[in-house]
């Protein structure tokens, strides 16, 4: 078995080691670790641990914003990280999602449905699927003509799209309220009580720790998990294989029989819908939308989250979103850190400078992002992990009875050598190749 020699035992980064450890766990063990971890994250705004808890802004609201940015990062990651289409106007979809909810439920809007037949209690829930649908359609409208363009051209056109959406919101004053925006947007009315007359999701619920921010954070965690499951399944399907092929080499993908235009459009549409969902959440949480929230700089910030976290890695980009949202808020209002006096407000105000610097440094030393993607084997994705895990277990068992050890360990390796299960889960040089931006 000279082939075994090629099995890479290269130095792995922390991320790779973590991933290998995770992949080697059985499904129940993964649940056993994953669920408490998510619960712990969800309990952060309740526990409010010292130092970590933000001082300038309410911790719950910061985490709620993180939840929305995480959704945006996951959606943008489908477009940029998975399919390799540089979208600089992603904020446009966020805006369309938020404005759809606003237009349907704000009393300032001419299309407000809540003063006649729609109960304000349910209006938000009613508007969310519509917002997702409309953003998806807008993704289709933007994508159909522009996805024939490539690289820089696509980036420029999408940049224009983001600005157009904002300018429309700013200038169609009769509909969108122009610069004044739309106020009193509906939110889910749940859990009314004496001290929370409008329910737990109302912006009026300010009694920490279980204030509205915490509740929106919890809602966004649920949505993130759902979206992750959907996107994860797509990535493992033929659609995901097509996306990766397009990112790697569009012409080669077409020559392999991948309908590239169709799948690029799908990526755009799915990315847009997730952005729209996040926008709908935002509109519900703050109950107020204005055009300035959807500045083009936000597109860059979302992109920054994706690139920082690691393009193509769903969990990495969530971490990227956390950094983008949390770090400025960590410093905001802070006057000392571990006894050292600092001017946190200044640091927070220069966040774009620091993120810019961080990106430059990252591009030099770790262009693939903090937690880069490792591609899974395409066709037999999970099957391979199961196979290699079984082989590893068998090998481990074979070592114990010393007498038969050499013979059995020999056979177990060749069992693992059945066609296509040969590929070990650790991919050599993954770090070197995933970084192409």
């Amino acid at each position, binding site marked *: 078995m000279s082939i075994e020699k090629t099995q890479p035992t290269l130095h792995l980064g922390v991320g790779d080691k973590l991933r290998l450890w995770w992949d080697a766990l059985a499904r129940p063990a993964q649940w056993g670790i994953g669920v408490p971890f998510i619960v712990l994250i969800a309990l952060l705004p309740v526990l409010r641990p010292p130092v970590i808890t933000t001082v300038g802004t309410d911790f719950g609201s910061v985490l709620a914003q993180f939840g929305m940015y995480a959704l945006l990062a996951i959606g943008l990651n489908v477009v940029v990280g998975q399919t390799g289409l540089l979208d600089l106007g992603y904020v446009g979809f966020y805006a369309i999602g938020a404005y759809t909810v606003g237009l349907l439920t704000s009393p300032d809007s001419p299309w407000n449905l809540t003063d006649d037949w729609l109960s304000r209690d349910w209006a938000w829930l009613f508007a969310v699927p519509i917002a997702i649908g409309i953003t998806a359609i807008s993704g289709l409208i933007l994508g159909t003509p522009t996805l024939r363009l490539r690289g820089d051209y696509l980036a420029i056109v999408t940049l224009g799209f983001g600005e157009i959406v904002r300018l429309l919101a700013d200038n169609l004053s009769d509909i969108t309220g122009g610069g004044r925006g739309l106020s009193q947007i509906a939110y889910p009315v749940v859990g009314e009580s004496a001290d929370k007359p409008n329910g737990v999701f109302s912006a009026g619920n300010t009694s920490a720790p279980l204030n509205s921010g915490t509740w929106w954070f919890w809602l966004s965690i649920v949505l993130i998990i759902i979206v992750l499951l959907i996107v994860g399944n797509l990535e493992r399907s033929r659609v995901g294989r097509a996306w990766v*092929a397009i990112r*790697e080499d569009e012409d080669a993908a077409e020559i*392999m029989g991948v309908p590239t235009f169709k799948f690029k459009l799908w990526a755009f549409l799915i990315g847009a819908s997730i952005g729209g969902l996040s926008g709908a959440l935002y509109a519900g949480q703050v109950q107020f939308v204005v055009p300035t929230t959807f500045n083009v700089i936000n597109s860059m910030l979302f992109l920054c989250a994706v690139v920082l976290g690691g393009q193509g890695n769903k969990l990495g980009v969530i971490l990227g979103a956390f950094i983008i949202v949390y770090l400025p808020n960590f410093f905001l209002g802070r006057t000392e850190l571990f006894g050292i006096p600092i001017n946190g407000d200044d640091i927070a105000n220069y966040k774009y400078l620091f993120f810019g610097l961080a990106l430059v440094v990252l591009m030099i030393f770790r262009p693939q992002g903090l937690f880069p993607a490792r591609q899974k084997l395409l066709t037999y994705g999970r099957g391979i992990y199961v196979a290699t895990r079984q082989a590893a277990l068998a090998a481990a068992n074979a070592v114990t009875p010393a007498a038969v050890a050499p013979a059995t360990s020999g056979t177990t390796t060749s069992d693992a050598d059945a*066609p296509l299960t040969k590929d070990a889960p650790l991919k050599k*040089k993954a770090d070197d*190749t995933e970084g192409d931006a």
Partner: protein
Amino acid sequence: MPLLELKDLTVAYDRIEAVRGISLTVDDGELVTLIGANGAGKTTTMRAISGIRPVARGSVWFDGRDITRMKAHERVSAGIVQAPEGRGVFPGMTVVENLEMGSYARTFKTKSEHDATVERVFDLFPRLLERRTQVGGTLSGGEQQMLAIGRALMARPRLLLLDEPSMGLAPLVIQQIFRIITEINKEGTTILLVEQNAQQALSRSDRAYILETGEVTTSGRGKDLLADPAVKQAYLGVA
């Protein structure tokens, strides 16, 4: 009825016609070569056949059907599979993943058919088996070429288009690649080959077309062309 027929095909880049009214046929089971100097229009012809490049005038027929307007990815499903010039392997995918992409449009009905095809590719290119967990971008030029051909074979093509498989390779590797091409052809896959390496290509092909500035100037049996004094002078460096 030929498997592939180009009728008076013209392909243009804006107003420049790279291919001007060429006609050629490839019969089932043949190994046909297109040779010509740089800029003769060989790769453009290939791109028109695989559908990457739109046709300005004329038509492309495959298996009795007019496929001039058919999209590139649909042609793959129909059985025209190309190993592109410059190899075009997916740089971030491993060898095995690259091979799996080959069968994207023409999926395997059974697992055993899949395994047999993979095994066949590894038989032809044992080097790929050694490198199977390595990503495409880190392979050598010759290995990438092998991978590009192997990947095309995963689609079990009816017509295999090979665009300059010898480009940039060492003489020994070129020999090896051509031997394998002949072997694939003997097993029944029709091949249209574009080459600059006239000696190797002509001696191994059934028929050949010589392309000069976008037009077919000579055609005939490969061995006859090898003996042709004009061809010798132009392409084989023999005075």
